[in-house]
């Protein structure tokens, strides 16, 4: 989801070591940075955690788009705090990825030149203030749905990062829903904005869980290694079941004519997202892909002299301190 389409890497390790590793996984013993692990496991995790981190960073852009235009000072401060949290989440996740032997700058460069992905959802624009509510409610709601089970993922540093992040993520979802409530109960124009936001963000949110299980050929190994705990469709269904009543409470309509309660499965039947659009967005052809990567590249390039300057200053201070001793 935040790390979509992560392929489980093939592994060619000593079968004996591999079996011992699998035994450990099956016994729910967490894998720690200095433990032996299959090369495929390491690579898959670097991709997944790295892309998860990238998503947090790129995810600041659609919301940051509304900071200067937030309608009240209170909403503005809440949004600022939320975007700061996202930066922190990116930081925890990069730190977790680094325990696997890759550096944050290496990961950043792979994001910037398009070798690594980030979640498809952040390639959609935020066109009105209600979008900020919908992003908190739906996008962070989908994130929680995915991250709560990831707290039990087999790699220790990743699972601990998820525990920290989940605590803050529920704050994000609540603030989003709070915006939606205000808008949905406001004037007719505000209600229309809320409905419009839901119409545009519903399917992109469902896409966050990744392709349907039938098309997700790489899930099996990730589930075997307990990197992934639930299948894409399982989580998507859970998300729909949780979200539909929340939309009803707002008096808004979910943009899906086929939405029907299925008594037998105890859940909602819904229309799958347009997978052609999904794969297209992942390939870089979504509404904002170019803009998002340009913004990140510009920040990185324009900030180079600041990063170098701080390092040069730190070295100068260290040299002066050594000389004084």
């Amino acid at each position, binding site marked *: 989801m935040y790390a979509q389409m992560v392929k489980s890497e093939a592994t060619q390790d000593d079968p004996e070591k591999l079996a011992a590793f699998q035994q450990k996984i099956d016994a729910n013993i967490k894998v720690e940075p200095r433990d032996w692990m299959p090369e495929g496991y390491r690579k898959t995790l670097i991709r997944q955690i790295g892309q998860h981190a990238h998503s947090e960073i790129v995810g600041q852009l659609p919301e940051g788009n509304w900071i200067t235009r937030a309608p009240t000072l209170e909403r503005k401060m809440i949004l600022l705090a939320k975007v700061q949290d996202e930066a922190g989440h990116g930081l925890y996740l990069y*730190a977790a990825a680094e325990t696997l032997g890759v550096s*944050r*700058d290496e990961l950043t460069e792979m994001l910037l030149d398009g070798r690594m992905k980030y979640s498809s959802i952040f390639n959609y624009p935020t066109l009105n203030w209600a979008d900020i509510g919908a992003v908190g409610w739906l996008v962070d709601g989908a994130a929680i749905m995915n991250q709560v089970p990831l707290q039990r993922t087999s790699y220790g540093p990743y699972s601990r990062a998820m525990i920290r992040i989940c605590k803050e993520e529920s704050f994000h979802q609540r603030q989003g829903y709070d915006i939606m409530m205000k808008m949905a109960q406001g004037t007719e124009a505000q209600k229309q904005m809320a409905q419009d936001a839901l119409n545009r963000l519903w399917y992109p949110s469902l896409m966050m869980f990744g392709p349907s299980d039938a098309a997700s050929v790489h899930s099996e190994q990730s589930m075997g290694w307990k990197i992934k705990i639930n299948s894409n469709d399982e989580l998507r269904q859970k998300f729909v079941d949780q979200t539909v009543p929340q939309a009803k409470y707002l008096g808004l309509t979910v943009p899906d004519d086929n939405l029907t309660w299925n008594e037998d499965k105890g859940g909602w039947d819904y229309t799958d997202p347009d997978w052609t659009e999904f794969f297209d967005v992942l390939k870089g052809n979504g509404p904002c892909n170019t803009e998002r990567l340009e913004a990140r590249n510009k920040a990185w390039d324009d900030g180079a002299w600041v990063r170098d300057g701080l*390092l040069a*200053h730190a070295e100068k201070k260290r040299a002066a301190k050594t000389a004084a001793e």
Partner: protein
Amino acid sequence: MSKEWPLWEIFIRGQHGLSHRHVGSLHAPDAEMAIKNARDVYTRRNEGVSIWVVEANNISASSPSDKGPLYEPSESKIYRHPTFFDIPDEIGHM
């Protein structure tokens, strides 16, 4: 590419905590910035009152494969535990 900032490990003592606990890591050019960033990232919601930062390459860790030789011997040394002594019931709580 320019040089990377070094990695720092962050330890925080909670408001009622007795000792510093490892909470995570971050990149910063020097210790001062590492403390500032740790304050922003790891104590945003009253998590602590004291921060230690240590450059990661100053830390040496035990190896997972040494687990046996390092920790197992202590299990057989029951004489290190107070439960080893038989105190008569008449004595009461000791």
